[in-house]
């Protein structure tokens, strides 16, 4: 109780301080919180083709950002650069004030469009493989069990991935990403392969987990309505540049049919088609 109180009242102070002392205070056992991300002048080329040209963005710690754009606009590339899976030609990415480590280190985790579970490992072992390699091997399974509980699949740890439904598999993938308590979660169209109903269910689910764990979420999606339903902020990438950057000031959980919802969705879609 007291700890929780001091943690919240200290939060604004911590943002000003950047010393190691502040970071140790801000690291409680379960809720890890998020990390700030700053991107400056980011440029990426494949051969002659410039995919991203001079992107400047910064995300607050714990913010839920959706990146939308037409296919091939460079939104997935931005995500891969953020995780250090590719090297930029110019510019810089800093995560929590540090240069982005390769594959995100233990600070950041990546969720693919497909679950990409190892079919020959039980669900629990799949999740345990997401644990930080600094955690001793015998402590990884309890952590994995905890993460499975977080995604509501605590009793499915002994199953093979092949017996789960598509939505459940993606939840296992989410648990695998969460088991290391990342401060930044990058999601590359994670719900794109699911049917419409499961997708809406999973969106509510993702929102709950994000609220509970407080990581910074960067969601790449082509579904504008999904972006409006989930994000604090929508960034539209077009022609390798940030074409639109709007806040979504709606209260959660959001009602899809509402006028404000529709207005923001319309604004983003208009800009999306205007670039054509």
């Amino acid at each position, binding site marked *: 109780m007291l700890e929780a109180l001091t943690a919240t009242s200290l939060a604004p102070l911590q943002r000003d301080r950047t010393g190691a002392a502040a970071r140790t205070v801000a690291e409680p056992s379960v809720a890890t919180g998020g990390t700030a991300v700053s991107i400056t002048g980011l440029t990426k080329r494949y051969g002659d083709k410039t995919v991203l040209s001079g992107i400047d963005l910064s995300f607050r710690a714990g913010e839920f950002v959706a990146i939308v754009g037409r296919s091939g606009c460079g939104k997935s590339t931005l995500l891969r650069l953020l*995780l250090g*899976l590719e090297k930029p030609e110019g510019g810089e990415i800093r995560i929590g004030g540090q240069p982005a480590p390769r*594959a*995100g*280190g*233990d600070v950041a*985790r*990546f969720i*693919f469009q*497909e679950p*990409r579970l*190892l*079919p*020959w*490992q039980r669900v629990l072992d799949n999740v345990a*493989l*997401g644990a*930080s*390699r600094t955690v001793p091997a015998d402590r990884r399974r309890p952590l994995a069990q905890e993460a499975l509980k977080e995604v509501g699949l605590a009793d499915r740890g002994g199953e*093979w*991935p*092949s017996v789960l439904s598509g939505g459940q598999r993606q939840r296992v993938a989410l648990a*695998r990403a969460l088991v290391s308590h990342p401060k930044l979660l990058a999601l590359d169209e994670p719900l794109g392969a699911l049917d419409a109903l499961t997708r809406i269910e999973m969106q509510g689910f993702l929102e709950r987990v994000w609220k509970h764990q407080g990581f910074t979420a960067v969601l790449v999606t082509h579904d504008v309505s999904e972006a409006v339903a989930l994000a604090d902020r929508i960034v539209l990438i077009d022609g390798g540049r940030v074409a639109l950057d709007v806040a979504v000031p709606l209260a959660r959980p959001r009602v899809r049919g509402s006028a404000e919802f529709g207005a923001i969705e319309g604004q983003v879609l208009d800009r999306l088609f205007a670039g054509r």
Partner: protein
Amino acid sequence: MPTRFSQTIIPYLLPVGLIAFWQVAVATGLVARNVLPAPSDVALAFFELAGNGELVHHIWVSLWRALAGFAIGGLIGFGLGLANGLSRTSETYTDTTLQMVRNVPHLALIPLVIVWFGIGEEAKLFLVALGVFFPVYINTLHGIRSVDRQLLEMADVYGFTRAEMFWRVVLPGALPSVLVGVRYSLGIMWLTLIVAETISASSGLGYLAMQAREFMQLQIVVLAILIYALLGKLADSIARFLERATLSWNPAYR
């Protein structure tokens, strides 16, 4: 609706019927005894040879040759398949050579092998190992090549160590293909051994059959052939058991 009981019985109706017909055909003189002995003669030969321990001796010798040759050839094939699947350098050095050697039928080496090893054990082991080597090698290599790229990328992104990459991703991913190679090479194992023992041996099932032919004891020849069939079936069952035990994650093998 066929019941469980008839489900088990029906597959055996045809073979039992054929054996009965065979017995009747020989007994009535439709087929001459010196062309094909009756099933009862084969059964008598079995009891006689099993009784004096000769049969067990020959089966044991053949089984040992088969398994030892399989172990040698299979392990070398698996090792080289792993090396060439994992290392571009290793593949550059050896794959072309191996592919050239592969296209030589290994049984064509029999005259050479007899000159090298005489009719000793080495000749049989060499031929079996050589025959078994290629299916295991090719399928191991193919298995490693066809491991899901997406899983490899995931393992990379999630910071898997090199050991985890091998034991958790590459090897299990390649295993179905490796086991296909093992099953295929078990067939080649028996085939090679039969040919080798028939041509040059002083013991084993092939030798037993060749000796019997010299004295026109066709019932023993047929007996040897039947035992080969049973041993082949046994090897296949073992391979299927291995598949089911190691691939239980795969719905296709459950």
